[in-house]
């Protein structure tokens, strides 16, 4: 049974539609991320689940129960805020034991649970410190411990790592997932960081302008993005515009800018239709020199960036398009201004109908 279910939920703030007819399910013990750019409605969706805002339309279920009229304190949740929201007038211990105390738990049970949580978040020695005395990473751990001690099965996290520096963020990312899985909780995690979402989630919900663009596993979203936006937002992608010149049973032929022909294993398009082709940089092959073969274009290396185990090349094609390729450092290496054959394997090319508002608009993040 899904732990959380949203059915046709909408929320407006004045004229702004923050959440637009959203339906989704989060299963028991699943770790789901809501991913999207600023203003896409992911935080509002989270706050709707928490009961911190009321939906204008639709229904919200937690554990099979309709909770539209249920206040936050009765929904059995824990919530970790982006800015932690630790009570400044209480030390770490008082913050963590706040939930059990207000629910009337006896002191023995409260102390046991709180001690266990402090151990889990590795802050047992700082239980008497006030928020102003703790570092960013420690504040996040206290906030997490407080949410976990509240006793619910559902953990909601609003960009919990957003305030931390890069190294701590990386460390805590794995710890967070480990804790949630060890405790058998269901988690809904809001983030705008696609790498974070790809790393920790069982499934990802990509949102844009109040709507859900796609729901899927990290692998599924990355390898088979359903829309141009998802292809662009999750990972890097090269985009080429073209028109369909030939349609066969299991493939189409597309003429791109400059008259280059590309074969794509896709169907459902008509001859003469404008489409957009997408290829991931790591699926873009590079060969030195100009080698005549199918599905290739010629160009020159414009710039390169060393990424450790990979090198990223920016290549200016002869049709003036710019493509990005990522090549392992163990493979062939190229210099700036080298002439290059850029090869797009047909099985790695995705095709999309040309967007009504134009490609540029479709690629806009916000």
């Amino acid at each position, binding site marked *: 049974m899904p732990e959380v279910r949203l059915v046709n939920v909408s929320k407006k703030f004045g004229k702004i539609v923050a959440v637009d007819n959203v339906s989704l399910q989060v299963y028991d013990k699943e770790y789901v991320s809501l991913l999207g750019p600023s203003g896409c409605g992911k935080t509002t969706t989270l706050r709707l689940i928490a009961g911190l805002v009321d939906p204008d339309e639709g229904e919200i279920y937690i554990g099979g129960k309709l909770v539209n009229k249920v206040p*936050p*304190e009765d929904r059995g949740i824990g919530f970790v805020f982006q*800015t932690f929201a630790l*009570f*400044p007038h209480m030390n770490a211990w*008082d913050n963590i034991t*706040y939930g059990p105390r207000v629910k009337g738990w006896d002191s023995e049970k409260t102390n046991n649970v709180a001690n266990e949580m402090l151990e889990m978040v590795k802050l047992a020695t700082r239980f008497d410190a006030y928020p102003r005395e703790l570092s960013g990473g420690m504040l996040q751990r206290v906030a997490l411990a*407080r949410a976990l001690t509240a006793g619910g099965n559902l953990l909601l996290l609003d960009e919990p790592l957003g305030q931390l520096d890069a190294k701590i963020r990386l460390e805590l990312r794995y710890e967070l997932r480990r804790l949630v899985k060890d405790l058998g909780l269901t988690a809904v995690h809001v983030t705008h960081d696609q790498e974070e979402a790809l790393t920790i989630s069982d499934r990802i919900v990509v949102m844009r302008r109040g709507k859900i663009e796609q729901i899927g596993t990290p692998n599924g979203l990355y390898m088979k993005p359903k829309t141009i936006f998802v292809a662009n937002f999750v990972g890097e992608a090269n985009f080429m515009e073209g028109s369909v010149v030939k349609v066969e049973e299991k493939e189409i032929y597309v003429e791109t800018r400059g008259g280059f022909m590309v074969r794509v294993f896709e169907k459902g398009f008509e001859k003469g239709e404008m489409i957009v082709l997408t290829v991931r940089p790591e699926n873009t092959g590079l060969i030195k020199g100009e080698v005549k073969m199918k599905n290739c274009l010629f160009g020159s290396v414009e710039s390169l960036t060393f990424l450790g185990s990979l090198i990223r090349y920016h290549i200016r094609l002869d049709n003036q398009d710019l493509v990005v390729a990522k090549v392992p450092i163990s493979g062939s290496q190229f210099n700036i201004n080298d002439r290059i054959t850029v090869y797009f394997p047909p099985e790695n090319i995705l095709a999309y109908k040309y967007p009504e508002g134009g490609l540029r608009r479709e690629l806009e993040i916000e």
Partner: protein
Amino acid sequence: MERFEKTLDLLSSKPSIRYLVYGSSIVFFFALILVPPILGIILKWDLMGQIFENPSLMSRATSAIYSSFAIAIFVATIDLIFGLPMAWFIARGKLRWLDILDTFVDIPFIIPTVALGYSLLLFWSGSGGISSLFGRGLVSPGWLLIILLHFTFSYPVVVRVMVGEILDYEQLYEEGARTSGAPPFTAARTVTLPILKQGIIASFILAFARSLSETGATLMVAGTFENGPIFINNAKNLGYEGPLIFVSFVLIAVACAIFAIIKLLGPRLRMPVRKVWPDTERVLSGRGIAGLRDGVSIWIFLVLILAPSLFVVLPAVNALTSGTFGQAVTGAGVWSVYWQSLVLSYALGAVVTVLNIIAGLPMALLIARKKAGKLPSAILDILVNVPMVVPSIALGVSIGLFWKNFAFFPELGLLIFAHLSITYPYFVRAMSAAIERVNIDLEDSARILGGRPFTVFRTIILPLTKYSLFAGAIMIFTRSVDETGATLAVVTKLKTAPVLLVSWVKGTVPATPLDIGLGCGFLVVFSFIILLTMRILIRGEHRHA
């Protein structure tokens, strides 16, 4: 003008000139604001012995002092008890008419206190007020009417401060409490209120000081009851110098002590947040209880505050339709003095406002930017507050005692100094807070780019604090126009409008109820017009800033 600015610019570059400006502001503060009241008491210390020789007078004096503090503490407490729920309702409510309620809450604040006093006197004691429903005066002049009056004019102060605090407060803390399982009442009690503690203490102090200081309207409603300011006024009228010095001294000393204790111990006060009563607090969080609380808050505001405050409109309107208006316009009878008093009040307000700006700005800069060093600036910061917490009539007495040693000193000068002393802390407080909010990086950038100190002040600090400057000016102006206690203490011949109206109500000058009503009405209307004009000017500047 350009040459003048260039000259000031060049002068401001010289450290000696800067020291002179800041030094002068410190000397001004000590020589004209802080020291004279202290010295005034010290120089007449020996006269205090008079009261020790008169046990019945001593008993009357101590009773009056006790009444002042008891009333002030009681009023400040009920202000919090009833004002906090109202502030919560206004700040957190989602109803459209809350904006109207928010505006109405300010009405007693805007009405000059002397008009407020007369309005309450008519409403609670007069035959035409609420008493008409009961066939007799419901609340006679005395301590209860004083409490109602002080509650009326200090309640908006508490509501205004707390609305601001609640709106500025980070709601995430409360959300953290709710998502941890706390119902709304528990979240408010254990998280929100402790975080707002500083604001609660500040509003308590403001309400306490306001009640302690109030004189003019209190005289109107006191009947035969005596608190500290009334005792001082009566003693002055009877020529009892020793007793009035004694009571003034005790009021000043105890007020300062209470203020210091609250400031020192207040932040250390720990609210009970650990103990929780889940079942009871869940019931208290229910919609029914919350609705009842809001309903009671609104009822108390409407019946105990708004209706009595606006009651003065009735006699004022009656006076318009009777011959009183014609007499007023032609300056016949008692009205000849009224217009002179009104002009004196507003002219005094204007002079005091200008002097405060000239003298107060350097002091505000000194405190905000710690130009005198960290410790001295902190000390100045505390000392500047002293005239604010001291009852104004006591302050007026001590100022009068000091300056009357200089026989040539005119009464108008005494009046200006008295009003300056009372209003100076308000302006310096407002401006120093505004200057502190200006990021110092902006000033440093301007200096690095070549701006001299005066240019930096003129082009960076002043534009960014213009709104606070105007708001501070309005505050001083209205405070000065409203001021009665210190005025009564220092002058005998000159009469400001509030002092004149008090004498009309007390019957020392034969004025009819219609005269008094219309006199109050004019004061209210002119104050509204001036305030509105100044607010429009401020908004215009704020938009262009």
